[in-house]
Each structure stands twice: as structure tokens, then as C-alpha cells.
């Protein structure tokens, strides 16, 4: 009859004094990883023109068949996008979307990227279909804060993370090389930290999960106390 179980008592008693690892959601949100796939946004160039050219490649590649695109010729006196056509109808059904972001990979103009917003819900199926007016970024280049979505300060800045982290050709030598055009309100954004390890968290606005988790590390290892 070994007395090894006394170690269990010591550990549980010690943990009463350790910080709690529970995040008091929804008062405080768990930090989102840099390249989280959330709700999509339709980007615009720095001069305000929309990037989407209505080519329907995203709809073609979507495995869940959730994107509906129809293009129209640009009216010559008031072009919406630089080029011949623009996305006239653009709808995404978020009940079908699996957030694989194949559409982001497929887009030739980096028109569709994703934000990190996933805290939205609906009460009817038709409410789940986001139209182009809701998806297009506003005049500051930020995603629109729709009334049923739970945005917190600073969350809207972090869009297009995954696009800027992976190399479009897949070749690791091109990771971190700027191959995208400027965005409205942000200009040409710096590359995200990819797998090669070159990170610039201040410029890209990333929240390192490591820094956030530091709060949950026990005090004797240098962490801070949190929660009641």
C-alpha cells in the first residue's frame, strides 16, 4: 500500500493558489491565432476600387458550394473595379461555408480574404446569406461591423492574415515575399510570420499566443495571476 497518493493531495492544494486558466468568455475572448479562418471580406484597392473582377473562380473552387457570383461589365463612366468586369452579385452562404479558404487561394486579385470573425449567428436560413454590401470592406478598409456580429476593439484590423503568410506558389523560398497589392486603408501590408519563422508582430498586428498564454503560466514560473 504505497503512499504515493499523498502527492495528489499536495498538488491539488498547491493549485488552489495558482492562476485560473479559464477565460471569462464572453467578457473576455480567447486570443485568436494569427491565421484563423473566419468570415470573408471583399477587399478594395487603395484608391477605393473593388478588387473583385467577377471571374467566379472562387465559386468554382468552393467545395461546399457556398459562393454565388455573377459578373457584369464595368459601366464605362463609373467603373467599380479596374478592368473589364466586376462582381455584380456576390453572396456567401455561411451555413455551408467550411472556412477552408480555397477561395482565397484561387482569387487572382486577392479580392476575397478572411477576417477572424466567427461570433455570429442567425435565426433563419436566409439571414445566413451574406450579400456583397455586407462583405465589402467599408471606406476605411475595415470589415463592416454588422449588428449581429460580436466585434471587439482591434479585431477588425486583422484580416488577410493567411493570405499574407503562405506563399501562393507553395514554394517555401517565396514565403514572406510581398506578392499582393495594396489594400484600402492599410496600403501594402507586411507579410505575416509563416513557417520559416520570420515574424514582425508589431507591423502585422499579430497577437502571439505564447504571450497571451504567459498569463496562464503558474506564478512560480513567472506568470501572472488572473481571474477570481
Amino acid at each position: 500500500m504505497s503512499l504515493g497518493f499523498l502527492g495528489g493531495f499536495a498538488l491539488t492544494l498547491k493549485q488552489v493558489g495558482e492562476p485560473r486558466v479559464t477565460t471569462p468568455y464572453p467578457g473576455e475572448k480567447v486570443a485568436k491565432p494569427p491565421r484563423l479562418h473566419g468570415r470573408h471580406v471583399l477587399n478594395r484597392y487603395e484608391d477605393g476600387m473593388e478588387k473583385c473582377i467577377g471571374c467566379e473562380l472562387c465559386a468554382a473552387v468552393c467545395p461546399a458550394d457556398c459562393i454565388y457570383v455573377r459578373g457584369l461589365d464595368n459601366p464605362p463612366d463609373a467603373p467599380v473595379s479596374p478592368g473589364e468586369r466586376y462582381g455584380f452579385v456576390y453572396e456567401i452562404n455561411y451555413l455551408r461555408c467550411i472556412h477552408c479558404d480555397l477561395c482565397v487561394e484561387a482569387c487572382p486579385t486577392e479580392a476575397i480574404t478572411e477576417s477572424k470573425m466567427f461570433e455570429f449567428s442567425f435565426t433563419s436560413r436566409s439571414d445566413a446569406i451574406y450579400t456583397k454590401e455586407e462583405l465589402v470592406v467599408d471606406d476605411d478598409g475595415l470589415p463592416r461591423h454588422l449588428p449581429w456580429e460580436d466585434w471587439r476593439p482591434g479585431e477588425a484590423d486583422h484580416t488577410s492574415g493567411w493570405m499574407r503568410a503562405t506563399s501562393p506558389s507553395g514554394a517555401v523560398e517565396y514565403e514572406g515575399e510581398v506578392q499582393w497589392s495594396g489594400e484600402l486603408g492599410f496600403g501594402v501590408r507586411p507579410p505575416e510570420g509563416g513557417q520559416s519563422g520570420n515574424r514582425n508582430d508589431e507591423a502585422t498586428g499579430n497577437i502571439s499566443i505564447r504571450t497571451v498564454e504567459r498569463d496562464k503560466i503558474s506564478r512560480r514560473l513567472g506568470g501572472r495571476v488572473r481571474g477570481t
Partner: protein
Amino acid sequence: MILLSVLHPLLGTTDDPLYSGGVGWVVFLIVLIKVLVVFGALMVAVMLMIWFERKVISDMQSRIGPNRAGPFGIAQTMADGIKLFFKEDLLPDQADRFVFKLAPYLALLPALLIFTIVPVGGVVTIAHHTVELQVADPAVGILFLLALSSVSVYATMLAGWSSGSKYPLLGSIRASAQMISYEAAMGLTIAMVVIVTHSLSTRTIVDSQAASFFHWNIFRLGILPFPLFAVAVTAELNRPPFDLTEGEQELVGGFHTEYSSLRFALFYLAEFMNTITMSAVMVTLFFGGPDGPGFHFVRWLWPILWFAGKTVVFMYVYVWIRAALPRLRYDQLMELGWKVLIPLSLVWLLVVAAFRVGTVWGLGVFFGGVIVGSALWQAVLVGRARREVLEASRAGRRGANDSYLRAVPEPDGGE
């Protein structure tokens, strides 16, 4: 509860000074007030105990625990109770209807009644009557506790059997076997307390420990009976680590699987009420009950506070045990009860009884027990070692016969 308290002068001789002048309406009123206060306090205490357990367990598991309902989540138990009240009350098709409805009350009654014999405080004077601060003080005292804990076995057994399905039946069979086995160890340790106190009445037990700190029964009996009693009582209550019979991972819900709504709430209530009551009984039997230094003003309050404080310490220990220990498997549980607790309590009972006769006898039996015990332990160890050698040699001989394995060609590198 009222019936008991009023009838107990008739149940046997009693030294309760409240009844020394006959039972008038003042006495009846005092008893009524005592009953109501204890009933109310017990209900509130159960609510707080459930919250306390959830909060302490979550502290030990680096979580926050309930913190939404009321400040620090205190109203969580109330909210759960109200929710349970509004749930659908199911009666399984194969269930024995009368027994199914009866079992939760059979579980609740002992939990309520055992607390009546627990001395909560000292002796005060109300309206020219000497009142002991406990609901009832019959001469049979502690025997009442043993009797009622046997009745609670009925509750478990009947609950599972009357549910009319497999898992509750298995759970209740295991639970009742477990409770009966540990009752023996419980009774033996209580017998030790009674030997030293010369009386079964709980008031006498508490008074005999009041002389000084070292007169507490835990020291007077040697330290051993207290852990034996504590383990026996934990198993009796189906508390972790002995909660195999009601663990969700084992048997769905054990004997209370088929119960819903208020009936389940009654089982839940009964379990936590039993926990509080048994902590109180442990304090009474081994730690002097309300004994402790006090001040001269508000003299009646300090014993109550001492009693409450000690009980809270034990409740914390119960929750701590729940957080720290994994569940015992059924055979480990039964082995612990029959092969460890009962022999140890029997031997210690012999030692205590021998010490009552005379110190020489006591020391003689003690050392005799140590010698015989170590001889037996040596025998057990030798038996284990021999069995290992036997199995090793048997495995070796079996290995020589594994020629069928050689039929498979060995993977060779070059060829």
C-alpha cells in the same frame, strides 16, 4: 423530527435536562424551535455545501467554477434545484411504482434524522429550562446513527431494484454491498469510542472530551480509529473515491439513473446532507464536538462556532479527497473494507478494551497484535514472492513449448 424529539424520553432513559420537569407546552415550543432551526440550517447548509464543493474543486483544478448565478455563484444550487423541479418526472414502464416513489424519501429521512443527535453547542438556559443545543439526546445516541445508516442502505438497494433496468440494478447491488461492508468497520470504531466514554449518549461523548485538548477521543484512542472511521464513513456515503456505484463513467448514474426531477433532487440532497452530517458526527466522536476555548460574553455562541468550524474543516477535507484521488475499483474497494479496515478495527478494539482493563493488559495486547500482525504480513509477502516465482517459471516452461512461433520465418537482412 418533532415526533422523535418529543418521544425520546419515552424511548429509553434519557439524561436530557429539558424533560426533567415533564413535557409542558414551553418544552414543546422549545423542541419545535430547535427542530425548525436545525431543519432550516441543514437545508441552507446543504445548498452552501454543494456550492462550496463545486468552488473548491474548481480551485484545485485551476478553473473558476460557478460564478454567474449570484455573487461568486452562490445561487447556483438554488438555480439547479429550481431547474430540477421543473423537469419532467419520469416513471419507467418496468418500475415497481410504489417502491420507486418511496426510495428517495427513504434516502432523505436518515440524512435528516441523524443530525438530530449531533450536539451543536453547549448547554444554555431558556425560560427556566436547561436546554442542550442538540435536537434530541436519547440514551441510545450513537446507536441511533448506526440504525439509520442501515436504513439508508435500504434506500440505495430499493432505488436500483425498483428502477426496472440493468444498470441501476447493478449499481444498487454494488452500492448496498459496499455500504454493508463498511458499516462493520464503522460500528467497530464507534464501539471503541463507546468503550472509552462509558455511554452511548452523544452529549456524554462530547462532555467526556471537554476536559482538555488531549482528552479528545482522537488522542485518547490512539490516532488509528479516526482514519478507520473516516474511510468507513466515506465509503458508507458513496463519496469519492468510493463512488463507483454512482459514477457516470461506470454505470451511467448507478442506482439513481432512472430518477429525474424532484426524486433525483432528493437523492442529491440526501447525499450532501449525509456528508455534512457525517462530518458533524466525526467531529462529535473524535474531535470534541463543540469543545474549544471561548469568551465570557455571549457564552452560548463560541461552542457553536467551534463546532461549525471543525465541521467545515472536515467538509473541506472531503472535497479535497474528491479532487485528489481517483476512484477505487470495486474489488479494491471490497478488499479495503474486508481485508484492511475490519481486521485493523478488530485488533484496535481489542487493544482499547485491554487498556480499559489495565495498562499492562493493554500494552500486552498491543505488542501481541504488532507481533502477530507483522508475522501475518511476512506470510503475505512470502506468499506473493512465491507466487511470482511460480508464475515466472510457468511462463518460462510455456515459452519452451512455443514451437509454433518458430514456424514463422525470421526476417533476415541479407538473404
